[in-house]
C-alpha cells in the first residue's frame, strides 16, 4: 500500500496541446480518490500518466515514496482497470485473472489456485472456465477487478469503471466497489465524468477542467462549498443557481429581490460590488405565501424528481430553481417564494469563492 504524489506534473502532446498543466496532488495511503471532470479535461491522461502509459513532459510521479516518473508501467507496482476492461478474449476467466501472476513467473498450479481464490471472493466461482465474451457486463467488470486484485499492487487505477454498465447495475456496482475498496484498503484512483459517482464513492476527489485541478476535497466539501463557479455548475444533480448580484450595504440585490449576505462572506464584501450569488436548489425553503428575504416570482415549470419536485421560478427575467418536498409542489402560474439558506448560500467574485 502506498501514497501517490504528483509534483508539478505536466503533459504536453506532440501537437502542442497541454493536457496536464503543472498538477500537484497527494493521494494518501488507502484512500479512494476520484478524478472528476468533463470529457477532454485531462483526467484520463492524468490516470494514464500515473500508470506510465503516457510519458510526463515535466514534473514527477511518486508512488510509495519512490520516484517512478521514468519507470516503465510494469515496474510501477500499480494495477489498472480499463474502461472496456481489456479482458483477453482468447483466455478463460481463470487465465485472465492469473495473467499478472504469469508475468511474474508464478507456477501454473499456484496461479490457478490464486485465481480461484480471488474469483471466489468476487462471486465468480462458477465462471472460471468461461471466456469473457460469454459473460455479462457486470461479470466482466468483476473479472477485471479480480485480475487487478491478483496483482497485489500498491495502488489501483480505475478508468471509468462503471461507464460500461447499464444504469441499474451501475448503482449496485457503485456500492460493491466502495465496499471492496474499503475491505482491501488499497490506494485507489478512479476517473469518472459522472459527478454523482464521484460524490457517492470517493473519500476525496479532484475536479478537473482543461488540464487544471479546480478543487480538491471530500465530496461534502465539494458539494457544499464549490471553490469556483465551474465546480459549482458541474457538481450536483440539479445545477446550482448562479445569479448576478450587487452588494447593497448588508444585503445583496439579486434579480430585483433583497437577500442577506451569506454567513461565510460576511464582512468581506464592498458596497456596490458586483458578484455572483450561488445557492443550490436543495438549500432553498419554498413557500406559496410571502416570506422575508425571498426570491419571489411566478412558477414557470414543475418537474417531478420522485420524492421531491424541482420548481423553476421566473424572478424578473432570471430563472431560479428550488427543490420542494412532495405534497407541497405549487401549480404552474402561481406566485412562489424561495428563501435561500443563509449558511449554505455562497458568493463568487470573478468566479472564485469569497
Amino acid at each position, binding site marked *: 500500500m502506498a501514497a501517490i504524489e504528483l509534483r508539478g506534473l505536466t503533459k504536453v502532446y506532440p501537437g502542442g496541446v497541454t493536457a496536464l498543466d503543472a498538477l500537484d496532488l497527494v493521494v494518501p495511503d488507502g484512500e479512494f480518490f476520484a478524478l472528476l471532470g468533463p470529457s477532454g479535461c485531462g483526467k484520463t491522461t492524468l490516470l494514464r500518466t500515473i*500508470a*506510465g*502509459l503516457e510519458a510526463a513532459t515535466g514534473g514527477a510521479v511518486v508512488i510509495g515514496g519512490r520516484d517512478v516518473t521514468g519507470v*516503465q*508501467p*510494469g*515496474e*510501477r507496482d*500499480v*494495477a*489498472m482497470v*480499463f*474502461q*472496456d476492461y*481489456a479482458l*483477453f*478474449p*482468447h483466455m478463460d476467466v481463470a487465465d485472465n485473472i492469473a*495473467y*499478472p501472476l*504469469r*508475468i*511474474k513467473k508464478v507456477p501454473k498450479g499456484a496461479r490457478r489456485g490464486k485465481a480461484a481464490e480471488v474469483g471466489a471472493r468476487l462471486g465468480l466461482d462458477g465462471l472460471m472456465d468461461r471466456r469473457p465474451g460469454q459473460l455479462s457486463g457486470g461479470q466482466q467488470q468483476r473479472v477485471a477487478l479480480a485480475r487487478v486484485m491478483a*496483482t497485489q499492487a500498491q495502488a489501483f487505477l480505475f478508468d471509468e469503471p462503471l461507464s460500461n454498465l447499464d444504469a441499474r447495475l451501475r448503482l449496485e456496482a457503485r456500492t460493491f466497489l466502495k465496499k471492496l475498496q474499503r475491505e482491501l484498503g488499497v490506494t485507489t484512483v478512479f476517473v469518472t465524468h459522472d459527478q454523482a459517482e464521484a460524490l457517492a464513492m470517493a473519500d476525496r476527489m479532484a475536479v478537473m477542467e482543461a488540464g487544471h485541478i479546480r478543487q480538491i476535497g471530500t465530496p461534502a466539501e465539494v458539494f457544499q462549498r464549490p471553490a469556483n463557479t465551474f465546480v459549482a455548475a458541474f457538481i450536483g444533480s440539479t445545477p446550482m443557481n448562479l445569479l448576478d448580484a450587487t452588494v447593497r450595504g448588508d444585503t445583496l440585490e439579486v434579480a430585483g429581490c433583497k437577500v442577506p449576505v451569506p454567513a461565510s462572506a460576511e464582512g468581506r464584501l464592498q458596497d456596490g460590488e458586483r458578484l455572483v450569488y450561488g445557492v443550490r436548489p436543495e438549500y432553498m425553503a419554498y413557500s406559496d405565501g410571502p416570506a422575508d428575504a425571498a426570491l419571489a416570482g411566478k412558477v414557470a415549470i414543475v418537474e417531478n424528481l420522485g420524492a421531491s419536485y424541482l420548481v423553476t421560478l421566473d424572478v424578473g427575467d432570471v430563472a431560479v430553481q428550488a427543490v420542494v418536498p412532495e405534497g407541497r409542489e405549487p401549480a404552474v402560474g402561481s406566485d412562489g417564494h424561495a428563501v435561500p439558506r443563509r449558511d449554505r448560500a455562497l458568493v463568487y467574485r470573478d468566479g472564485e469563492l469569497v
Partner: protein
Amino acid sequence: MIRFVLGRIGFYALVAVVLAFFTLPLLWLVTAPFTADPTYEVRVPLPGGGRGDGGTAAFTWDNFRAVLEHPYALPSLYNSVLLSAGTAALVVLLAALAAYALSRVRLPGRDALLYVLLLLSSIITGTAAIVPLFQLAVELDLIDSRLGLVLILTGGLLPAAIFMLKDFMDSTPKSYEESARVFGASPLQIVRHVVVPLVRPGLATIAVWAVANVWGNFLMPYLLLSDVEKQPAAVITYTLYTEGGQANLRLLSTFGLLYSVPVVLMYLFVSKKYGFRFHGGIKR
C-alpha cells in the same frame, strides 16, 4: 401484396441466373475427370453410360491413374505446396511484424509509404516487371531456385499484406496491450500472449490469401523455373495444355481437378473456422 410476390419472383429469378452463370463453367471440371475419353462436352459420367445416349459417358478412374503415372504431375503439386507454404509463412511473419510496428508506433511518413508501396505492388507484380525481375534473378543466381522464387513472390505480396494487417490491427483496441503492459509484460511477451492471439483471424486471412495467390501464380514460376522437376502445378497445367500441339484432355481435366482441390479445401476450412470475412483491409 402483388408487389411483394413480384419482388420474390424477381429475387429468385436473379439468384437463379447468378447461380447458373457461376456454375456453368465449373461443370466440366467435375465431370470430365471421371469420363472415359473426355471431350469439351459436359457429359455425366455413369457406370455403363456413353453408349450413344446423349449427355452421359462411361464412368472411370483411369484418368487418375494416368495422372499418377505422369512423371511430373504429382511432384509439381508438391512443388506448389512448397512454394505456397514457404511464401505464406514468410509473408505472414514479416507482414505481421511490420504491420504491428506501423500500427502502434508513430513512424514518420508511414501512411504515404504504405500507399506508395501498395500502388507499386499492384502495378509491378504483373507483366510490367518480368524483364527486370528476370535479370535480377540471373544476377543474384536465383534462376531455378525455389528460395529465390519464394523471396520474389513474398516481395510482391508484402505491401498489400502489410496494408490489410495494419488496418486489422488498427481496429484492435490498444487497451489489451496497455493492460498487459501495466501488469509488467515485456513488449515481446505482449506480442506473444496478447497480440498474436487477438489478430489470429487476420493472420489466417493473410495466410490463405498468400497461399491462394502463389498457388495460382503462373507467370513468375514460368519465367524463373526452367527445371521441370521444380515447376509447380500452374506451369505443368500449361505444359499439358500445349505440349504435343493437342491438349491432352484426360490428363488436363483430371490434373486440373487435383490441382484445384487443395485451395477449395483450404477455403472451406478457413471459412468454417474463422468465417471468410473482410477485416477492414480495404475500408476507408
